């Protein structure tokens, strides 16, 4: 259009767009280089030097602001934490319940292990003590099974014929006589307890030497009776009853002499009876048998 006043760019002056791009690149490049220099210096001398000093001073200046920011943000953070805990409470509870169950199981197992350890220690002490019969070796064994029937008076122990266990081997605990082996397998054996109706053991009163037979009681499974004791012999409440371990010319008792059986709790006699009526409280707890000693006769010992 003619007659319009038009400004033309001066010769040699770069257009404005080029100037802007150049300025942009210079600023950007300068900032990147500056950042790289800062990184290098700060990384090489993080604790001393001018950059570290400047950073330290700047940190001191910023400190009030960060503290203020922290205080301002604290209520919001609390709200967030509360909301977050509500959202995660369900999964947390589930996880904690599972952990609790696992820990409870572990505590039970530890308790079992501790109890078993105590009992095995007591058995070992008994085996090494003076009460243990000299002609026998004691095989410590855990009880691995109990019959399910309420009237069964047997337990299964974790030693068998491979360990030298034979049928009729006496079985004791650290407290006293328990029963005898009635069935043997290679790695396990069944022990019939003294409380079983089929089992009886010849015994004597340590104090008076009155002899008789100890067998299951009629009143309860945990009480024994000291039977076949002649009226003329003396037995008192509190006397200790032990295995008799008798021996004749051809026969011998299955059980060694002197294994504690129990303590006399009552003594009576009727005019019509031939024998005394003696009740014995066993030393061994037949209801809680966890570990036993199976007595195996030593080689060369007198039968």
């Amino acid at each position, binding site marked *: *259009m003619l007659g319009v006043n038009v400004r033309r760019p001066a010769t040699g002056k770069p257009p404005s767009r080029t100037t802007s791009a150049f300025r942009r690149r210079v600023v*950007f490049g300068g900032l990147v280089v500056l950042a790289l220099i800062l990184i290098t210096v700060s990384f090489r001398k993080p604790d001393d030097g001018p950059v570290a000093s400047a950073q330290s001073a700047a940190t001191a200046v910023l400190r009030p602001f960060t503290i203020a*920011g922290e205080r301002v*943000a604290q209520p919001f953070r609390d709200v967030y934490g509360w909301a977050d805990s509500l959202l995660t409470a369900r999964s947390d509870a589930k996880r904690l319940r599972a952990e609790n169950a696992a820990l409870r199981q572990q505590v039970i197992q530890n308790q079992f292990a501790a109890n078993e350890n105590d009992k095995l220690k007591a058995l070992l002490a008994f085996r090494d003590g003076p009460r243990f019969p000299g002609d026998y070796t004691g095989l410590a064994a855990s009880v691995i099974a109990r019959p399910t029937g309420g009237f069964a008076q047997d337990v299964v122990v974790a030693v068998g014929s491979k360990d030298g266990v034979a049928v009729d081997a006496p079985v004791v605990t650290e407290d006293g006589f328990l029963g005898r082996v009635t069935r043997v397998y290679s790695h396990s054996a069944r022990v019939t307890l003294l409380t079983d109706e089929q089992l009886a053991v010849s015994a004597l009163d340590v104090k008076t030497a009155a002899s008789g037979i100890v067998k299951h009681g009629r009143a309860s499974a945990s009480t024994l009776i000291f039977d076949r004791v002649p009226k003329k012999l003396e037995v008192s409440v509190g006397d200790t009853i032990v295995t008799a371990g008798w021996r004749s010319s051809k026969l011998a008792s299955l059980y060694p002499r002197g294994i504690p059986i129990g303590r006399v709790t009552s003594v009576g006699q009727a005019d019509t009876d031939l024998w005394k009526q003696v009740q014995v409280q066993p030393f061994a707890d037949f209801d809680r048998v966890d570990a036993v000693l199976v007595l195996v006769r030593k080689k060369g010992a007198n039968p």
Partner: protein
Amino acid sequence: MSVGNGLKIAVLVFLVSIMQVSAFSSIRIDGAAPDLLLVTLVSVALLRGSITGAVTGFLAGLVVDVATLGTLGLTSLLLTLAGYWAGRYGETTGRGRPHAPLVATVVATVFVELGGYCLDALLGGPVGVRAVLLALPAAVIWNALLAYPVFALVRKLIGSTERVERAREVELLV
């Protein structure tokens, strides 16, 4: 850019930097925290251009590095690059596009997270790449959620008119 506007941006970014290091960094979900500073920087860069973005990123990074007693310049470098790129994106491809804040925020987040890991690894940092990759999606989601609200707030605070270069002269060809 006027001095008043520059001051506004400086105060805004300074306050956001302080809030970032004292508050937002501790809100972690799936290993990632919302990066309000980065989102604010992207918004400023989109509204004010690449030079403002780069300078703002450099200064904001400096504040963060000082406040967190980190290696000086590390965050500055990352935020300078992020601010510059976001500014260039806003000046060119993303100009006037409604999705620009979201795209710029997501790209900047991925760049800053991965770039931060690379720089940290170069300097012998202990962070494993697995942890970074696992936290990356959460970081992207956090920042993407913040992108539009923060962009709107920043535009309200600093305006958006200055970015367009005004024609200072008219050239007529006769």
